């Protein structure tokens, strides 16, 4: 696994230096398939289910999940993207530039929204996402799917679907990419 430039995290970006691979690409695909089944099972099918990927790491996962669900249930699931930059409670502390567009294709009123993200850490992104989703209608319920739960929560937030629980130290960094999941550190450019 190569070093990866984290340019989108300006100005605090850097180079991700992997230490060990914790999930292979195949592991990730298997976890996605399992989580997709759990979603269909828990909601008794896909009626009213809308997938919303969090920009930027959650978007490709949500897209792949939609493909799996389409294969499994034989129908297309509405898929949206959400950038929560404008809803964060820590503006001024973090790079909050919007990285990509928000695109919610349907009114969420009465829907079951499944938020998809790559890594669940402090919970602040999810909190911001919950606030942001409110602008697009009153969902019947909101569920959370993450590929990695690395602990260290700062808010009472708990995922509904998890790819893998991964104990980490705060100083470590988790990277979810095309080729799997790695754990490592961020170094300055």
């Amino acid at each position, binding site marked *: 696994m190569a070093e990866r430039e*984290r340019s989108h*995290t300006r*100005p*605090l*970006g850097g180079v*991700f230096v992997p230490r060990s691979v914790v999930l292979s690409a195949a592991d990730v695909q298997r976890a996605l398939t399992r989580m997709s089944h759990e979603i269909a099972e828990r909601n008794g099918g896909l009626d009213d289910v809308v997938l919303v990927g969090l920009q*930027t*790491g959650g978007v490709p996962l949500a897209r792949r999940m939609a493909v799996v669900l389409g294969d499994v249930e034989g129908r297309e699931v509405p898929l949206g993207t959400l*950038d929560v*930059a*404008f*809803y*964060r409670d820590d*503006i*001024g*502390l*973090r*790079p*909050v*530039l*919007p990285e990509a*567009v*928000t*695109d919610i294709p349907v009114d969420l009123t009465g829907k079951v929204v499944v938020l998809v993200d*790559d*890594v*669940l*850490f*402090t*919970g*602040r*992104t999810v909190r911001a996402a919950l*606030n*942001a989703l409110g*602008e*697009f209608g009153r969902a019947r319920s909101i569920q959370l799917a993450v590929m*990695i739960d*690395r602990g*260290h929560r*700062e808010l009472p937030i708990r995922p509904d679907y998890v790819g893998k629980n991964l104990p980490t130290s*705060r*100083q*470590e*960094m*988790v*990277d*979810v990419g095309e080729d799997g999941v790695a754990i490592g*550190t*961020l170094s300055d450019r």
Partner: protein
Amino acid sequence: MISTADPVSAAPETTSTERHLLSVADLGRSGIAEVLDVAEAFAEVERRSMPKVPTLRGRVVATLFFEESTRTRLSFETAAKRLSADVLSLAVGTSSVKKGESLRDTIETVEAMGIDALIVRHRSSGACHQVARWARRAHVVNAGDGWHEHPSQALLDCFTLRQVWAERAGVPPASMGIDCFDGKRILIVGDIRHSRVARSQVLAYDALGASVSIAGPGSLLPPSLAGWPVTVEPDLDDALTRVDVVSLLRIQAERGSGAFVPSLREYTEHWGLTSRRASRLAPGAVVTHPGPMLRGVEVAGEVADLPSMLATRQVTNGVAVRMAILFLLLGAPGTDPRAARPVPEGVRVAVGSDRG
């Protein structure tokens, strides 16, 4: 070329970490690109049924217009409100604060109320530079100073042009970057001498790589064009056939530009965008106007209603662009006045794909 922080060197490549927005030169090429991209994100917010985000909750934005301008003031105030900032609109019309002597007192009083951003329009060129010298903590946004600059107007013009070109190409505007300005031919027509819009446009378009020319009566061109990255088009009719964008300026009778031409009728005849002249425009060429338009003077009524006239779109886009300006000044990293708090170690590590 109009950078006042460093007047000699080219527009510095600074980013949105500048504390104030006094001149387009404060942004430079990369800063303009950033404003345009962030504005796209806010344009999406504006399309929502509830077009408001909590980003600047608790921040206070004050508009101080020492020269009245309903549309610019409303645009900034709408932008601030859609970011959930509290907005104070200071009644500093012509009567109450007429004397320059009290400007400093006004600024210091307003600052003492804990205001985070001062949006200032003033009839004096450079007034915002003075305000920025006096402001201890507030960010200063130039909403038009004399004949000098009107940065937000030029930025929304850039935003609107990219939007139009992206629509024609069938791609999202942000995906075009700023390369779409490269080599575009932009002609600014009218009272360049007294126009703050023209000065900001020249800086912005030039920084983005467009080729800028100007046309207008000799008495309404600047006394010197030394250092201006523009060419002068002596023949408007001829120039119109060769450009991608025509930027019309308003004849500013209230600033005395009326006395610089024999009559408005003669101006219209020789420098107005009449139907005859509009028909000379290349296919696909568009026309911008900062408004309010004087129909029948700088632009014929029927030309003003053509689809290539972007004036209404410019007004619409003004809010998103001003949201971006406020967001980048007030919401960017390191700008939280409440936070002398250092960034915790763990948080810094967390800013990769797992932003918490």
